[in-house]
């Protein structure tokens, strides 16, 4: 897939590395602190290393020590989303947005600012509340004009809900955010010719699971539907697997 003309992998990776160095240096200086900030620092390091459960524990500890630690709440939501803890992420996000509607989180890999309402929008998407998510992102756009993530997410949702013209309106806002360079390319097609706009079905944001499911996915409103897990031995064929488990 083509990327937007502005994407430069060398520059982008260098910028990310420089930013990460700053974040990690600051964090490692207080990892031993038994304070909310110390727990937050540990959480940030864990989240960067993909120790997601440990990151969640640390951010929860940070909030326990100081319930006004909005950064901890924001990062906790992102980790809960990462692990598909849909209800928990929505609860954390709603709590943050109601307590600190003007809060913005600085990304650890760039200078991008993410509004509390953008984080709420992400949680709403994961909970399949698409219309509410659009409202949240639009609020984020109004409250935090420099939140390019909200604009990109809005573009995705507008495409998914059959409103390509609305999606096009967002492109100038996020076109320089390298995280969304591929999206920029897609939406740019529509700028040249609306007929070329990708016509995502309503579940495009969550359809990745469908694309990965074995066999032919059972989709309902674009979401892949799976059974619960049980313990019926009749479903277990006797397959010879010759592996040393020691």
């Amino acid at each position, binding site marked *: 897939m083509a990327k937007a003309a502005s994407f430069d992998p060398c520059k982008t990776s260098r910028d990310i590395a420089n930013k990460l160095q700053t974040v990690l240096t600051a964090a490692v200086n207080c990892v031993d602190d038994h304070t909310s900030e110390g727990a937050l620092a540990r959480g940030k390091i864990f989240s960067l290393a993909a120790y997601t459960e440990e990151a969640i524990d640390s951010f929860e500890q940070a909030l326990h020590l100081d319930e006004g630690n909005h950064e901890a709440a924001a990062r906790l939501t992102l980790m809960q989303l990462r692990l598909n803890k849909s209800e928990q992420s929505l609860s954390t996000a709603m709590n943050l947005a109601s307590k600190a509607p003007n809060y913005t989180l600085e990304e650890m890999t760039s200078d991008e600012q993410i509004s509390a309402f953008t984080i709420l929008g992400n949680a709403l998407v994961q909970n399949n509340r698409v219309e509410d998510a659009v409202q949240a992102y639009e609020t984020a756009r109004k409250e935090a004009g420099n939140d390019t993530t909200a604009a990109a997410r809005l573009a995705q949702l507008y495409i998914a809900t059959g409103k390509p013209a609305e999606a096009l309106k967002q492109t100038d806002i996020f076109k320089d955010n390298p995280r969304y360079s591929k999206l920029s390319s897609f939406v740019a097609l529509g700028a040249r010719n609306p007929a070329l706009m990708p016509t995502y079905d309503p579940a495009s944001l969550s359809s990745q699971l469908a694309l990965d499911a074995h066999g032919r996915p059972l989709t309902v409103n674009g979401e892949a539907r799976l059974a619960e897990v049980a313990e019926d031995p009749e479903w*277990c064929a006797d397959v010879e697997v010759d592996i*040393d488990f020691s």
Partner: protein
Amino acid sequence: MTEEERHYIGEAWVESGLGEHASVASFARFTLDLMSVAAPPELLQRSIQAMSDEVNHATLCFGVASKFLGRVVSPGRLDLTGVFSEMTTPAQILHATVSEGCVSETISLAYAARAMDQASDDGIRGVLKTIVTDESRHSKLAWDFVQWLLMTKPELRDQAIRSFKSAVSTPYGQPPSAKEFPIAERFGHLMHESKEQLRAEFISSKIVPRAAKLLEISTEEVQLALSDK
């Protein structure tokens, strides 16, 4: 193999099993869709056979999963709310078949074939061989149905073009949140990066040309929707 790796591989096979199990319902719905558009009996029979194949695939996947996890794992209840209320028009059935059958299932087949090539265990390779053989027929069923539907309802051609463009241009998902274990590729499961590359290759070299031929448009016209030139 560490305990963590064993657990990871086992869970991956559980996911595969749940996907195969859900495919039974997907083909059940497809069978009803075929009847709603008065499809010929040959397509109906192939869809019914596919349901039986998927039950077999599910038992094989859960069999492997149970070996790795050291406990019995199976599918439980499947919530069918809304499953049969969605698709009523031929255009909706066409869109779903293109997305789920022509593209998703065909790509899933490519993953299974690659996983089979890389598997180091004979038992797992045997399971994947069964899946690949059967899924090849299932993929063909989807394409054959689309071809038949467009022959009987040529007015759906523009919808078919839109559906293919949508299905192949949906960006691949973000890397998984949980840690991946490369050893899993020897036991039937590809890493995210492998899948991403394979998906892109397969779309451009197999699916796009096949769609272009089916729709009687040039490959370039289909590719245009995927590039920014």
